[in-house]
């Protein structure tokens, strides 16, 4: 295998706006680049790439593969797959990382199949094995009950998707520079088999779990939908967001936009307060990289205490309002 010593980050954008997860991947990619000695690059298909270049350099890209076409303004699987597949085959990078977003989870499996490349979904940890010269891709499986490290020994590129908020983005500076490689991919031969009619942003989806510094989540232990009031009150004094376990969403106590976990959102706030959440692995998979976890549960053996920094064993109906009161007093 004679591939280029490059690590590519798929720079996901729509209407010229870069996805946060791509910047997070650049930060993580930089660590891999240092360890492997490879060059960190961004792959940017868009209608107009220039306004995004500075940001990509600032987050660590040393080289940008810039592909522009009016058809690349918003995501359409056939066009984007054609662009990415073409570049993967002409440039042969060693490693390619994608955000595990709706877009990333369309483009990555499509081009993996097109190029017989390995693809590992939803990695929570990436490392480079300098002895075997191979990417170690660690991810939860079986709802998070086990962790598995996946490798791709004989096929290139080695590709992985990573959910947002798994890695932290770190800006290197404001005026970082790098190389821009302009590439043209002819899309005239790609038949338009699907067309986007409408795009709607919903307010309900704007429950900003992903950007929140504090998250207070309720599980089945809160007893009923009315008790989310207590959760909201605590989130309110902390200036944070309300999360929920799958059990409460399945029971329709709260909308699925609040769901944290393997099948919900992955979050990493400064403080995560889990109230009446037993800690099913599928929930832990979505929140265990939080900076600090405070668990409140009446069952001292609940698995949530395995990942907690602080555990309060007792009745959440007394503890949560008390915590709200004392924090409010502190802030007054």
């Amino acid at each position, binding site marked *: 295998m004679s591939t280029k010593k490059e690590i590519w980050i798929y720079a996901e954008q729509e209407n010229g706006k870069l996805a946060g997860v791509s910047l997070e991947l650049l930060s993580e990619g930089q660590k891999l680049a240092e360890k492997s000695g490879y060059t960190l690059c961004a792959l940017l298909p868009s209608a107009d790439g220039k306004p995004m270049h500075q940001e990509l350099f600032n987050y660590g890209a040393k080289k940008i593969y810039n592909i522009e076409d009016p058809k690349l303004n918003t995501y359409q*699987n056939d066009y984007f797959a054609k662009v990415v597949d073409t570049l993967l085959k002409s440039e042969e990078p060693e490693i390619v990382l994608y955000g595990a*977003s*709706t877009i990333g989870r369309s483009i990555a*499996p*499509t081009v*993996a*199949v*097109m190029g*017989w*490349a*390995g*693809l*590992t*979904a939803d990695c929570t940890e990436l490392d480079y094995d300098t002895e075997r010269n191979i990417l*170690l891709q660690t991810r*939860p*499986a*079986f*709802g998070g*009950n*086990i*962790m*598995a*490290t*996946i*490798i791709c020994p004989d*096929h290139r590129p080695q590709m992985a998707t990573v959910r947002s908020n798994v890695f932290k983005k770190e800006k290197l500076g404001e005026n970082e520079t790098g190389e821009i490689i302009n590439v043209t991919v002819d899309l005239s031969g790609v038949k338009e*088999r*699907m*067309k*986007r*009619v*409408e*795009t*709607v*942003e*919903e307010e309900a*989806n704007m429950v900003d779990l992903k950007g929140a510094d504090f998250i207070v989540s309720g599980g089945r232990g809160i007893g009923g939908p009315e008790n989310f009031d207590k959760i909201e009150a605590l989130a309110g004094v902390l200036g944070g967001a309300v999360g929920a376990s799958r059990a409460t969403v399945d029971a329709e106590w709260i909308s*699925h936009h609040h769901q944290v976990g*393997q099948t919900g959102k992955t979050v990493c706030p400064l*403080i995560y307060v889990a109230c009446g959440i037993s800690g*099913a692995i599928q929930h832990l998979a979505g929140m265990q990289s939080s900076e*600090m976890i*405070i668990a409140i549960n009446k069952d*001292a053996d609940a698995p949530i*205490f*395995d990942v907690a*920094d*602080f*555990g*309060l*064993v*007792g*009745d959440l109906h*007394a*503890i949560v309002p*008390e*915590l709200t009161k004392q*924090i409010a007093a*502190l802030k007054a």
Partner: protein
Amino acid sequence: MNIVVCIKQVPDSDKVTIDRETNRLNRAGVPSIINPFDENALEMALQLKDKNGGKVTVISMGPPQADEALRTALSLGADEAILVSDRKFGGADTWATSYTLTLALKKIEEPIDLILFGKQAIDGDTAQVGPGVAHFFGVPMVTYAKECELTDEGFRVKQVTDQGYNIWDIEKPAALTVVKEANELRMPNLRKKLAAKKAVIPTWGYDDLNPEDEKIGLAGSPTKVNKVFAPPIKLNKEILTGEPAEMVKELISKLREKKII
């Protein structure tokens, strides 16, 4: 209209645990179920059939016991079932699975209008086989579909995104992966349940699909499992007990010590 739903039989993953000493999976006694997201794909197919007529075929790649999942699908209203099973297909990752499943879809005689998948399977959680099959089979694909309506040229599909939703017009034949919010699976029908028990389900194996050897099973899989291990647990934790007001006071003073609040 011919709709094919690809379903996977999975262990009820909430009940699978790992032995922290041996790092082996404890799967004994864990029931097998139809992957929950595939139930939503099946229900979407059945609703499209109820409204527009047509035929729903379910297909599953897996060990012989996946037959059970197919019979459940028949009892819910699917018209035909096909099992794709052969020891030689074992150990396939999402690439080799997509390849093998596509060969099976190509062997179905009637022209297919729509291929449905659950958005992901709860054991592997990869969400990769749907897009993989769509490409190999040569049809356009929308992921995370919540609604699907038949139109003159194809389908109008509502796709759930991280921010809201998209509406797509997609020509047929097409492939979709379906989210949980799409619908709720209907109850099995007693008469169909009896028929499903007796149904003859063909098994398509290596000789039926005639695959390229290097593209199936372990050999066809670019990714390999390097190791499995138990998720790490936090060791430096503090557990507080006692009166709520006292516990909270202690917690807050510790948080202040650490300059967190």
